[in-house]
């Protein structure tokens, strides 16, 4: 089932890229990066929502599965946030001739990346069994989620250069973007699933080895 999801995700991404490069090209060339950039930004934010929900779930029920899902979502979200910022920087350089500049959406994306990075470092460095680190990471997950809208509002104190939205001219372009969205979302789901299962298995192995 999971393999099927992975295969489907890659198929959708390939079809999206192919349509984007043939029928749905946007002028000028650098704007085509939006077929990667936009789906990744959506998924990076969605993973954050998953971290929030799983963190609340863990604090309420103390079930290990919630904790594993939160970790898996943070790891996947870190990858998407990295791609989001990397593609954004490439586009920024081509379009505005700077690699990075403070502007509301750019600041928000950068802080999103930092929050994921700190979450993963926190996860690695907390000792003391399994329950205390999991609780502290859950607290950080919730507080970090509170931070994201605050970042967006605070960035209003900086001039904006990000263009609000691209207008997609043809149905081909819409199709390429939508397929890219679906493919990236499926990829996120299967990555979170895979990592959560791996974490569950490693916990189980650890417990069997100890007893």
């Amino acid at each position, binding site marked *: 089932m999971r393999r099927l999801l992975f295969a489907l995700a890659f198929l959708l991404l390939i079809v999206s890229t192919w349509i984007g490069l043939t029928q749905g090209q946007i002028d000028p060339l650098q704007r085509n990066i939006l077929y990667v950039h936009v789906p990744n930004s959506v998924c990076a934010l969605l993973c954050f929502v998953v971290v929030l929900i799983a963190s609340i779930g863990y604090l309420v029920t103390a079930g290990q599965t919630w904790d594993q899902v939160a970790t898996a979502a943070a790891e996947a979200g870190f990858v998407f946030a990295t791609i989001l910022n990397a593609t954004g920087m490439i586009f920024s350089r081509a379009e505005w001739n700077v690699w990075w500049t403070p502007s509301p959406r750019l600041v928000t994306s950068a802080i999103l990346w930092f929050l994921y990075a700190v979450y993963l470092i926190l996860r690695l460095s907390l*000792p003391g069994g399994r329950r205390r680190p999991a609780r502290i990471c859950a607290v950080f997950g919730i507080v*970090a989620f509170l931070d994201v809208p605050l*970042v967006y509002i605070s960035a209003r*104190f900086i001039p904006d250069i990000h263009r609000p939205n691209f207008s997609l001219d043809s149905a081909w372009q819409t199709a390429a973007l939508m397929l890219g969205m679906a493919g990236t979302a499926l990829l996120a789901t299967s990555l979170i699933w895979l990592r959560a299962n791996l974490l569950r298995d490693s916990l189980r192995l650890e417990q069997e080895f100890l007893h």
Partner: protein
Amino acid sequence: MKDAWLGLRAILIKDIVVELRAKQVLPTMVILGMLIVFILRMASESASAGAGAPVMGAAALWIAFLFSGLLAQERSFASEQQNGCMDGLLLAPLDPGTIYLAKLVANVILLMIFEAVVVPLVLMAFHLHVAGWGRLVTVLLLGNLGISSVGTLFSAAVQLTRTRGALLSIVVLVLLMPMMIPASFALLVLFGALPEDVIGSGSFAFVGSFQAAVAYMLAFDAIFCVASWLLFGVVVEE
């Protein structure tokens, strides 16, 4: 309610008395803050003479605040690790939120003493003229509360780790990043580098005013104080 108030006062007085007698962190904080201001002043000599001074001054002030605040916050729960003091605190018939509030107030007071030394130093070093002292104090206190609220919560969380201070610094700094934008904006207005209201035009349209910056900091403080107060019990639970 009365018990909570008595408990809060007891912990607060204990923390302040311990700090005043042992002088564990306050001298370090003040010297670190002065060093940061001094280094930034020297390093920016070529730009600090003219229009660059308010910008460098605001940056020096907040950087000194952030790093000295981290020292105070790390100390506030590190001192409870010896002789099982933390267990004693948790065994007291108090809501964990009350312990958090007491520690928060202690950290705010430490940072206020720090501010009383470092802020005049910054104003002198960068030749700054303040438009409205009351407003400056408001901005500094709001910043103080924001820095302390996040720091106190995660100070309790990072105890027992090997890299305590380093871990605390990245956790606190990443969460405080959004507050630093309006906080710097407000100081730049007070130091005369920005007009009271900034209304850009064209693609640079953005809103920025002193009132908006203060309102943002107030909202930030309120959100993080309440969230930390509610979540503190989860962090210290054994």
